[in-house]
């Protein structure tokens, strides 16, 4: 297992992160060490074991479909870095 700078760049792109060249080198070696450590799981036989995604066994949690008041537009928009009327404004998406 060897994590290259190219792997780091690929994963950073997926995660929407931009890394400085020195950071890429550092992450490659640190991720390599960590992934090398987690390799130990591969030595464990898990055939037929059901994966656990949640500590408490539970089915869907249903409730009555009753409308409650929500926080409202002004509160919801209060932290917006930029807004246009009742919308969050972002840089232009379509040319």
């Amino acid at each position, binding site marked *: 297992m060897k994590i290259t700078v190219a792997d780091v760049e690929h994963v950073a792109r*997926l995660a929407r*992160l931009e890394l400085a060249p020195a950071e890429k080198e550092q992450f490659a070696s640190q*991720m390599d060490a960590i992934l090398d450590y987690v390799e130990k799981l591969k030595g*464990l036989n898990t055939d037929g074991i059901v994966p*656990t995604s*949640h500590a*408490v066994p539970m089915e869907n949690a249903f409730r009555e479909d009753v409308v409650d008041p929500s*926080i409202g537009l002004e509160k919801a928009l209060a*932290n917006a*870095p930029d807004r246009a009327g009742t919308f969050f404004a972002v840089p232009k998406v379509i040319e």
Partner: protein
Amino acid sequence: MNVFEMTINDLHIALKGKQISSVEATSAMLERIESVEPQVGSFITVTPEVALAAAKEADQRIASGNCHLLTGIPLAIKDIFLTEGIRTTCGSRILDNFIPPYSATSWEKLRNLGAVLLGKLNQDEFAMGSSNESSAYGVTRNPWDTTCIPGGSSGGSAAAVAARQAIATLGTDTGGSIRQPASHCGCVGLKPTYGRVSRYGVIAYASSLDQVGPLTRDVADCAVMLEALAGHDPKDSTSVDTPVPDYTSALKRGVKGLKIGLPKEYFIAGLDPDVQSAMAAAIETYRRLGAEFVDITLPHTDYAVATYYLIATAEASSNLARYDGVRFGHRAEADSLLDMYTKSRSEGFGSEVKRRIMLGTYALSSGYYDAYYVKAQKVRTLIMDDFTKAFADVDLMLTPVAPTPAFKIGEKVNDPLQMYLSDIFTIPVNLAGTCAMSLPAGFSSSGLPIGLQLIGKPFGEETLLQAGYAFEQATEWHTRKATI
């Protein structure tokens, strides 16, 4: 006794007996915070106006006779809890200007009982860390030795209790983030069973592992806090709808006949000798009190850290996708939407958070999903089964909280794997979803606190409190105070 050294139970009696008002107690706490904060750094935001207003209200409530144990008690909470109208950063630059539009259920419950908010506590960024060094708001120092880390990620929550800057605090625990700092700072910290306390309004790190809990000066206070926090919340579909026991009445049941398991995987070579002798002394104390010890095994313990760092980072990479600069938080200047996402995140997140997002993204990415993420989920099943099997024979387990006392600031900063391994005894409990408590059990030769971990069955918090209280009555570790 100084107000700031009191427990919840002490201060409640003083408030009810009109020996002191909540406004006076709160003012004394605020002065204490101001005087020791330069040495400790427990807080990100101190909220004196909010605190004094709440204290005034609490005094009226006390005067009218309609008060709870927590009415008028000055508390502080980790900056991971949303507080309506009060800045909440989660230790991150990306939320530097974030003012939440609503509050976390756990905090709201305490506030509704009349608790007073002194401020928001320092933590590792997005609760990712074991030392509080990844905070964007400066390091927190251990009140017992300011060259050492307080532990993390609820480092501010533990340091504030130890430095007497709050009567009690709230933290969160994803892989040991309440218990490990409680151990390093010499206070009591309890991680409830997953689902026992609502996670609504708690900024998410790893949703299948995160849990809210108290840090206090003693076990009796811990029972008071847990009782106030526990219960089903319709706003958190993973909170469990089982009745909340009267935790305080469980305290005095004693430990006679209680079967305590000693998992052999937790008493390994390489355990710090001071930790080892503290554990031996604790076992002796419990024996004297009439508890019975059973050697048990949790055979998959050695796989827990690897499992955790795949599951937690995978969940984190998904949870932290919401920080994109669109609706709240930091937004970078950019010409295109994609650039805005990337630049906002890259400027806003610190290095440990980026590293965990990268690891999690890798573990979930095409070609690696089965080999890493699903594999880890299967090993999680084996780890849970270990606990289920062992708990068939014992009522609770006794282990160290951490393999060593608090380490030096800067010691593990450049070696993430070594940092991750410091959580080796706390992580399995989160994977299994059960409850555990850290309580003071001794000191190292250099005067640093050492914690003892009691692990309970799912929803077995009463047994933890009962056993913790018995230990506390028989020892005096919890009465020692950091010289700060």
